[in-house]
C-alpha cells in the first residue's frame, strides 16, 4: 500500500513541477512537516535576500524511510522534482553511488568545514568527495535518572551493576533501548560494539563482526533482555523507550537528543531528574555514539544548481541553524553554536552533548548499506529474542554482509 502511495505522491509532485511558471526559479526539497515553522522562516529570509528565487518545501510523511523512498523514486525516474536532497546521513553513499548527487568539494572547501562535527563530514563523504552539508546533528547517548544514580556508569559492568541494584521489575527496569528489528537496533548495538572495541568493517573494509570483541559485545547486549531490560524491549523503538523512561519505569535509557526536551516537559514524571552521559565502554576502550543527522545535497537533475547552492550556504549558516534549533528542536551541526549563551541557557546539557557528538561516528558508509543493515538487524534480533547464540548470530551476519560486499 505505502509503495503505491510513494509512487503516487512522486507522480503528483512531479506533475506539479511541470506546471511551473516561466521566469520563476524554483528550488524544491522534501522534509518532514515543518512542525515549529523554522523552514518557513528560513525560506522567507532567503527569498528576501534573493529576489526571483523561490524555495519550496514539500512536507512529506514523518517516517524517514518513506521520504527516502520518495527521493529515490523521483531520482530513479529522473523527473527533476527535487533540486535539493535533504538527506539522513545514511542515504549519502547510496544516492552518491547512483550518481544522483553533485559533489560539493569546490563549494565547501576544507577550511569552511572546520566548524562542523568530524563525524557529520565523514558521513557526508563518499569515495573521497563531499556530497552533503550538515544542517542538524544527532547521536545516541545514555540517559540516566539523577535522583537514583549517584555516579553515572562508565563501563558496561558498571551500567549492568547499577541497573541490577536499582531496578525493581516490573515497575522499574534497569535499562531500556531500541530492540525492535529495524534501523534503530543497529544504531543501539553499534554503540555497544564500538564500546567493546569492535566494528562492522575494519580499517581495510573487511567484515569484522565474527571477531572476539564483537561476540563479547553481543553477549553483553543480548544478556540485558530479561535481566536488566524488560522482555518487551525487543519491540521498542525510540518512542516506546522514551515513554518507559518518562513515566519513571527505567533507570537508564539509550536514546537520541530529541528525548531531552520531552523528558523535561511539564507533566513528565522525571522532569529535572535526567542526566546524560556518553554510552558506556569496556575498560581500555572509548565510547562512540552512533551518528544520525541531516544535511543538504544538490541533485544531479537540479535545474538551478547555483540557486540551490545559494540556499544551502544560507540555510546552514549559524543564524539559521540557531533558529532551527529553537523552532524545530534540532541539534545544530555547527560546533560554535554549542557556546551560544542563549542556547546554553535553555539547554544546560549541551556541553555534554557536544562531547558526545564530537566522538560520534557514522554507520558503515557504503552504497549497499541497506542490505548490510538488514542482514545485521535480522541476526541481532535473533540474538535478542534468544533464537541464535551471540557468536552464531554474528557469524551468520558476517557471512551475509560479506556476500553483499562481494556483489
Amino acid at each position, binding site marked *: *500500500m505505502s509503495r503505491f502511495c510513494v509512487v503516487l505522491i512522486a507522480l503528483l509532485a512531479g506533475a506539479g513541477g511541470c506546471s511551473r511558471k516561466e521566469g520563476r526559479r524554483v528550488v524544491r526539497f522534501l522534509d518532514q512537516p515543518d512542525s515549529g515553522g523554522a523552514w518557513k522562516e528560513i525560506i522567507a529570509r532567503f527569498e528576501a535576500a534573493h529576489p526571483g528565487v523561490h524555495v519550496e518545501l514539500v512536507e512529506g510523511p514523518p517516517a524517514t524511510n518513506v521520504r527516502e523512498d520518495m527521493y529515490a523514486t523521483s531520482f530513479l525516474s529522473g523527473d527533476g522534482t527535487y533540486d535539493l536532497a535533504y538527506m539522513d546521513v545514511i542515504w549519502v553513499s547510496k544516492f552518491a553511488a547512483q550518481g544522483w548527487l553533485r559533489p560539493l568539494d569546490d563549494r565547501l572547501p576544507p577550511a569552511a568545514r572546520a566548524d562542523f562535527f568530524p563525524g557529520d563530514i565523514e558521513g557526508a563523504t563518499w569515495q573521497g568527495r563531499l556530497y552533503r552539508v550538515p544542517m542538524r546533528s544527532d547521536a545516541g547517548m545514555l540517559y540516566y535518572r539523577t535522583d537514583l544514580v549517584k555516579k553515572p556508569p562508565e563501563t558496561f559492568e558498571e551500567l549492568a551493576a547499577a541497573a541490577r541494584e536499582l531496578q525493581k521489575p516490573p515497575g522499574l527496569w534497569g535499562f531500556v533501548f531500541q530492540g525492535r528489528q529495524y534501523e534503530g537496533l543497529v544504531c543501539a548495538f553499534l554503540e555497544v560494539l564500538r564500546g567493546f572495541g569492535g566494528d562492522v568493517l575494519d580499517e581495510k573494509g573487511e567484515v569484522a563482526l565474527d571477531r572476539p570483541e564483537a561476540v563479547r559485545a553481543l553477549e553483553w547486549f543480548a544478556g540485558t533482555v530479561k535481566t536488566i531490560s524488560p522482555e518487551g524491549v525487543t519491540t521498542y523503538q525510540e518512542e516506546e523507550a522514551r515513554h518507559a523512561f518518562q513515566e519513571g519505569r527505567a533507570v537508564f535509557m539509550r536514546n537520541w537528543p530529541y528525548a531531552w526536551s520531552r523528558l523535561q516537559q511539564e507533566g513528565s514524571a522525571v522532569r529535572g531528574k535526567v542526566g546524560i552521559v556518553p554510552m558506556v565502554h569496556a575498560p581500555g576502550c572509548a565510547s562512540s555514539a552512533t551518528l544520525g543527522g541531516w544535511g543538504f545535497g544538490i541533485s544531479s537533475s537540479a535545474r538551478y544548481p547555483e540557486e540551490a547552492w545559494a540556499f544551502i550556504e544560507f540555510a546552514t549558516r549559524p543564524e539559521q541553524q540557531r533558529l532551527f534549533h529553537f523552532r524545530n528542536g534540532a541539534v545544530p551541526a555547527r560546533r560554535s553554536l554549542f557556546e551560544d549563551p542563549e542556547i546554553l541557557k535553555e539547554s544546560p546539557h549541551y556541553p555534554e552533548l557536544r562531547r558526545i557528538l564530537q566522538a560520534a561516528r557514522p554507520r558503515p558508509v557504503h552504497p549497499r548499506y541497506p542490505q548490510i543493515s538488514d542482514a545485521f538487524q535480522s541476526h541481532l534480533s535473533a540474538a535478542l529474542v534468544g533464537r541464535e547464540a551471540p557468536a552464531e548470530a554474528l557469524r551468520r551476519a558476517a557471512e551475509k554482509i560479506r556476500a553483499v560486499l562481494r556483489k
Partner: protein
Amino acid sequence: MLLGLVLAVPLGISLSQGAGRFGELVSDPMLLKVAGTTGAFAAASVSLEILLGLLFALVLHRTFRLRGWVRAVALLPWALPTAVMAMSWRWIFNDTYGVANDLPLRLGLLREPIAWLGRPATAFAALVAADVWKTTPFVTLILLAGLQSIPRDLHEAMEVDGAGPVRRFFWITLPMLRPAIAVALTFRLIQALGIFDLVWVMTGGGPADSTKTVSLYVYDHAFRYLDGGYGAALTCAAAAAFFAVAAGAGALARGRARA
C-alpha cells in the same frame, strides 16, 4: 482490450527487467524462508476466517430483532483502513499498556506480561489474530449471500423427511455453499499471500525476520536496495505463484461440489 493493455504494459516492462534474474530466485535461501512464512500466514488466517465467517454467516442468516443493525456492525472491522487498525493492534499487544496482557493478568491467567510482538511465535499469532479480526466480516458477507441463495424448500423437504439441523447443514447447506466458499477462498488467499501493510506496521518483519512476508521482501529489493531487476523477477514469480495457489484452491472447493 483496455484491461489487456493496462495489464500487459507493466507486466511486459517487469518481465523485461526481471528476465535473466529468474535463475537467482532458486538459489535465494531468504526467499524460501519468506515464502514459507507467507504460506503459513495465509493458511492459518484464511482457514480461520472461513471457519469463523461460516459461523457468523449462519448466525446472521437467522431472523432475529436488530439483524440489520448487527450485520452493519459486524462489517465494521473490514471497513477500517488496515494501517490504522494495525496501529491499534500494536497497542493491544504492547507489553506494558496492551489489553492482551492486562486482561489475562487481571484474570490471573498470566503471572507476568508477555511481549507478544517480541517473540517469533506470538508475533506470528498476533498477526494472524489481527488479520482474522479484520477480514472475517468479508468472508461472512460472501457466505451470507451464498446462504440466502439456497432455496428454503430444500430445507423444508428434508425436514419433512425427518433430517435434523446437523444433517441438513452437511447435506444441503455446505454443498450448496461451495461456490460461495470458493469465491471467498480465492479472494482471501490472494490478499493474504500478498499481505504487506499489516505486517509493516505491526512488526516490520521482526523479530529475527520471523514475520517477514514475500511482499516485504520485494519492497526491500525494489525500493530499499534499488535492485529493480531482482524486485521485478520476484514480483512476477510471486504474482504467478499467488494466482496459481488461489485459483487452485478455489477450483478445488468448487470441483468437489460437482462430484
